[in-house]
């Protein structure tokens, strides 16, 4: 089991999946405008457990199983939101965004701007992301950079149960469209191999985690490792392993839009070394944006070149040996830290 802050908070431990469904339940209890739509969100509880228990408590009027019509029901979420409801819509796998992206990037993300601020879209679009369990090219992607690149929607991706609950509550209360990405590997599901960090202390009461603020779960002085989502768990494993040899500062971005550039700058100003760990594709994405955050302001902060441990620019292969060749695993993170330290 992991050495997290549970001893301090004294809170009971739950899985990330449970934390997400609990957040939605609490907001639904206090606000009748909140409802959920998506495929298999009802009695099934969501394919990855994000809506577990909600149908039993709230029924079919507020937890709505949809046909396989993403453009239709995401568009419907947008319409409900502009008329004052607060939908939480689930896109089953991020990889399915291709069939409905117009509604997302041309409508959900742009209505507020196009209306000169007069129309709001207080909607959460949550989705499962990530690979590592052989689900192949069309079911294993992260793609947060693709959403982050289009203006008008916030993008969050928690790495642990505590942040998952707080970010979901923040997302529901936010008057802006929020893309809430949960990596399948951090959900703590009983049918998928899990890092112990996918179970963690979560306060029973409501609380928020601010969107746009990174966390520093492992402070350090030698090298800055910036990451998000499941990769944060790997980074923490490596940082703990290297204690005594290298002092690693792990930054968990938690949000991509807004990006906590100050946190990145402050850390690199301290350490001078930057390693980025990102399971999304390497080129034209988040990792490049993190580098630009430094070089736009002050390239001299960097004592050594940046190390990027990212998914390469290849579709995700099915065979386990191929997929793990490409994934940003712990040994690759450790090697990158060593390279940064060697200069």
């Amino acid at each position, binding site marked *: 089991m992991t050495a997290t802050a549970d001893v301090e908070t004294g809170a009971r431990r739950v899985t990330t999946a449970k934390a997400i469904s609990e957040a939605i339940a609490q907001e639904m209890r206090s606000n009748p405008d909140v409802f959920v739509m998506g*495929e*298999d969100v*009802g*009695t*099934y509880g969501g*394919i990855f457990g994000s809506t577990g228990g909600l149908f039993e408590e709230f029924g079919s009027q507020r937890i709505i*199983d*949809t*046909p*396989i*019509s*993403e*453009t*239709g029901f995401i568009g419907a979420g947008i319409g409900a939101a502009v008329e004052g409801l607060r939908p939480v819509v689930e896109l089953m796998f991020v*990889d*399915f965004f*291709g*069939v409905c992206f117009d509604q997302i990037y041309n409508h959900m993300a742009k209505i507020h701007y196009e209306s000169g601020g007069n129309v709001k879209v207080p909607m959460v679009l949550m989705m499962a992301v990530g690979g*590592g*369990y*052989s*689900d*192949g*090219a*069309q*079911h294993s992607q992260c793609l947060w950079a693709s959403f982050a690149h289009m203006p008008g929607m916030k993008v969050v991706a928690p790495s642990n149960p505590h942040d998952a609950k707080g970010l979901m509550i923040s997302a529901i209360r936010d008057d802006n469209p929020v893309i809430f990405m949960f990596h399948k590997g951090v959900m703590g599901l*009983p*049918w*998928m*191999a899990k890092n112990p960090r996918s179970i963690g202390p979560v306060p029973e009461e409501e609380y928020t985690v601010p969107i746009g603020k990174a966390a520093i779960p492992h402070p350090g002085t030698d090298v800055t490792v910036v990451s998000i989502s499941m990769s944060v768990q790997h980074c923490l494993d490596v940082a703990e392993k290297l204690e005594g040899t290298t002092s690693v500062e792990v930054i968990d971005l938690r949000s991509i839009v807004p990006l906590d550039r100050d946190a990145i700058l402050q850390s690199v100003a301290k350490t001078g070394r930057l390693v980025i760990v990102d399971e999304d594709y390497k080129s034209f994405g988040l990792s490049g944006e993190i580098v630009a955050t430094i070089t736009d302001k002050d390239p001299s902060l960097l004592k050594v070149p940046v190390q990027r441990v990212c998914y*390469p*620019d*290849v*579709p995700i*292969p*099915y*065979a*386990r*040996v*191929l*997929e*793990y*060749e*490409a994934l940003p695993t712990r040994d690759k993170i450790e090697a990158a830290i060593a390279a940064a330290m060697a200069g």
Partner: protein
Amino acid sequence: MVDNDMRVDFYKEMVRIRTYESALQRDYHADKAPAWDIGAGLIPGEMHLAAGQEPVAVGLCANLEQGDAITGPHRPHHLALAKGVDMKAMTAEIFGRDTGLSHGKGGHMHLFDPSQHFSCSGIIAEGMPVAVGQALAFSRKGTDNVAVAVAGEGAANQGAFHEALNLASMWKLPVIFIIEDNDWAISVSRELATPIKDGSLRAAAYGMPSARIEGNDVEAIFDACKVAVERARAGGGPTLLEIHTVRLWGHFEGDAQAYRGDELAEAAENDPIPIYERRLVSAGLLDDDSIARIKAEAEEEVEAAIAFAKASPEPKPSDAYLHVFA
């Protein structure tokens, strides 16, 4: 017309497919216990098996030639096998080996066999526009080949279905749209997702002929597909066929199916293979000996394919970077 030789062939092929799916089910779960880890074992990842849907594949493919195309869904094995995709190469692909159809890159949802013009994908309904394109190519090349798009009843509520039908009809293309209605889109029943009971009615909206086939009977399916395929070959344009079938097992392996309630037991009673077997025995076309022989032959072929897969080498890790571009 279906003759007696064809009947026995239909039975053989359905048994072949069921034997295959059963063996994969066995091997898929074998090394995932006790802590069931979807990513573990010789066959990792998701697995969508087609037990119960054999009549669709067999009735359809008995009308198709090698040069005809099929785009299939995430539940593709019955279609691949009936189409003539090589069982060993397909199995090696499912086991993630270098001897697989895609050298381990695709896996069970992404089986590509260009020699059979067979492909499948995991995004619901997205194979339908592709089949329209294949039909366009066949038409322009002047062959009488046809393309077939196979998807589920849930897919008929996805935008791509409607665009594909409209386009195929507008351009009068040699494509057949097969909807396998197994009543379930994972846990969402047809009646909760589709307001009309007969999805073939949608064809009228796109100006194409259609039919809904009840009973999951391989011969009725064969006859309906024959009409559609011949129409397409003769330049008569597309057809929509909605075929009511049954999903005997879960949506994916590991699906506890609590949402099906009593219907699950009822579904088991509608297993099309024992039903057809009894019919052929009554007609004097099969007996205990021939049934045993057919099953033994199927098992032999399937186990040989699995043995081939298990004995095949894994791809080299560096192969992950190959084939991004031609």
